[in-house]
């Protein structure tokens, strides 16, 4: 048969097969509906918690100054969050959190890259990195003061020590699991040195890196709450200090307020990380 017809027939076949293999796009359902679907159980859960809480209060199991009623707590919360001071404190704390976390990311990344690159380095400090993770933050205070005196840097130091190990571990395991075929493909394309890192190793270890970041965030946040007690820098009062003070004042309603505040911040950040994680996974096709 003549080559012409073969080619033409092939064209139809190729694109026909392509069309078949790509599953038809599905509608996702309308947005409002999706939001509602994910929102109602949360609202229900909150309602349930409030109900149980209020019942316990009504039952007078504990004196009201030990276990305040939801109404008291939310009034207090309302009072707290409507002061400019509070938002100043949130700003101070979040600034520290982000600065510390960014520093931790930079440091963790460098350490992770070095450790995954040099086998002896890994044997030397691989376990140490995880060992550091289990060190309670207060143990770093003396060292922090020693190195950085009483400054913002001392707080950041504690935060960095809390978060950097997780970040480094995430990167290390990401690099470890870069598939061999990708490495070989890169090598054949002539990737060497920096180009190899830039075009292959770093992007390839991204998903594991992100979960390291997520874990690192949890650690850094907890370290920050402790570390903020290290020094009170004049200006707005940070969340950590406020929390401690609520405890010192034995103001249980205020304590619960701040538990709620910290929880909400924690959840918001978690949601952000999940969004990043999911969109990455979707782009990579790691999710269905």
């Amino acid at each position: 048969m003549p080559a012409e017809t073969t080619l033409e027939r092939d064209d139809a076949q190729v694109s026909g097969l392509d069309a078949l293999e790509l599953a038809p796009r599905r509608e996702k359902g309308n947005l409002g509906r999706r939001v509602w679907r994910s929102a109602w159980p949360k609202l229900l859960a909150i309602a349930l918690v409030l109900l149980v809480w209020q019942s316990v209060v009504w039952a007078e199991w504990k004196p009201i100054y030990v276990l305040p009623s939801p109404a008291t707590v939310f009034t207090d919360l309302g009072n707290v969050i409507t002061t400019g001071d509070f938002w100043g404190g949130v700003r101070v704390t979040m600034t520290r959190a982000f600065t510390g976390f960014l520093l931790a990311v930079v440091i963790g990344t460098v350490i992770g890259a070095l450790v995954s690159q040099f086998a002896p380095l890994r044997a030397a400090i691989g376990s140490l990195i995880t060992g550091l993770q289990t060190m309670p933050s207060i143990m770093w205070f003396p060292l922090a003061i020693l190195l950085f005196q009483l400054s913002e840097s001392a707080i950041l130091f504690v935060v960095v020590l809390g978060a950097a190990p997780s970040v480094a571990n995430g990167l290390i395991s990401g690099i470890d699991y870069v598939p061999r075929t990708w490495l070989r493909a890169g090598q054949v394309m002539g990737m060497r040195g920096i180009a190899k890192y830039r075009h292959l190793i770093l992007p390839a270890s991204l998903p594991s890196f992100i979960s390291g970041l997520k874990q690192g965030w949890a650690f850094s946040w907890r370290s920050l709450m402790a570390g903020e007690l290290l020094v009170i820098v004049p200006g707005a009062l940070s969340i950590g200090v406020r929390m401690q003070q609520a405890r010192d004042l034995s103001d249980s309603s205020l304590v619960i307020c701040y538990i709620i505040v910290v929880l909400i911040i924690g959840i918001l950040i978690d949601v952000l990380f999940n969004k990043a994680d999911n969109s990455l996974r979707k782009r990579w096709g790691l999710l269905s």
Partner: protein
Amino acid sequence: GGDDNGAASATGGGSDAATLRLGYFPNITHAPALIGVNKGFFQTALGSTKLDTKTFNAGPAAIEALFSGAIDATYIGPNPAINGWAQSKGTGLKIIAGSTSGGAGLVVKEGINSPADLKGKKIATPQLGNTQDVALRAWLKENGLNADQQGGGDVSVLPQDNATALQAFAQGAIDGAWVPEPNYSRLLLESKGKVLVDEKTLWPNQLFVTTHLIVTQKFLKEHPATVKKLLQGHLESLDYIEKNKADAQKAANAQLEALSGKPLKDNVLEASFKNLTFTADPVAASLFTSAKHAKEVGLLKPVDLNGIYDLGPLNELLKAAGKPEVSDAAA
């Protein structure tokens, strides 16, 4: 006054420091510091030397900061000062003035009326080996009750932080607590506790040190003039408290609010102020006695406290103001 280490008190020489970094706690027992900062006494006295204040939540952090050069002087309780002195083998710091006396004691639940009633009970103290902890243990011993460091014995002594102690007492998880102000008053006023021992009654003249002012030996040697100015501000603050009690209370509470966001309740503030005595006298005798007690109950390794005081500059100022000098004698 004075002792072998008279270099500082000898002259008013040495250059003024560019900055003085002063530590204190947002706590009513540090009222002279709170008021001095709030009213600007320190800065006025220091003149061209810039005042840089730092606040701490606990003694160990303040000592760490002092030792690592982050601050030059700080208000602090007797216990961390002794520990710092012992750890640095007498080279790290000097006590240069007293600040606060009194304001601590044992508050217990209803139904406990005598030492004997404490058998099998749980009593909180702020920290193992601190002044109140030692006081409690010594008092228990005197009354024939024993308590070990692991929380066992006739009376279970449980060191725990203030917040925990207050909450635990309110809920009946502990039976009493030997605590300083303002928690002493708060236990009484807010949690309906009653006084079993007011520590004052255990001391001669009803005086015992609660807070004093310390400075690093390096700073003292290099900038004696600045130290003197600091003391000047300190004395002014004390004066102010003595002369304007009501205003002083207000100023202290304003500074507390600035530092921690919430002022003390008026009744607690008043009660605390009533229990506390603000004086430049470091009540040296009580420090030595307390250290002796600590040794006796095994909470302090033998330590030579000789030379921990340098009251020369203070006494010079007191003399100039026509006030009685203070002593660093052990008894």
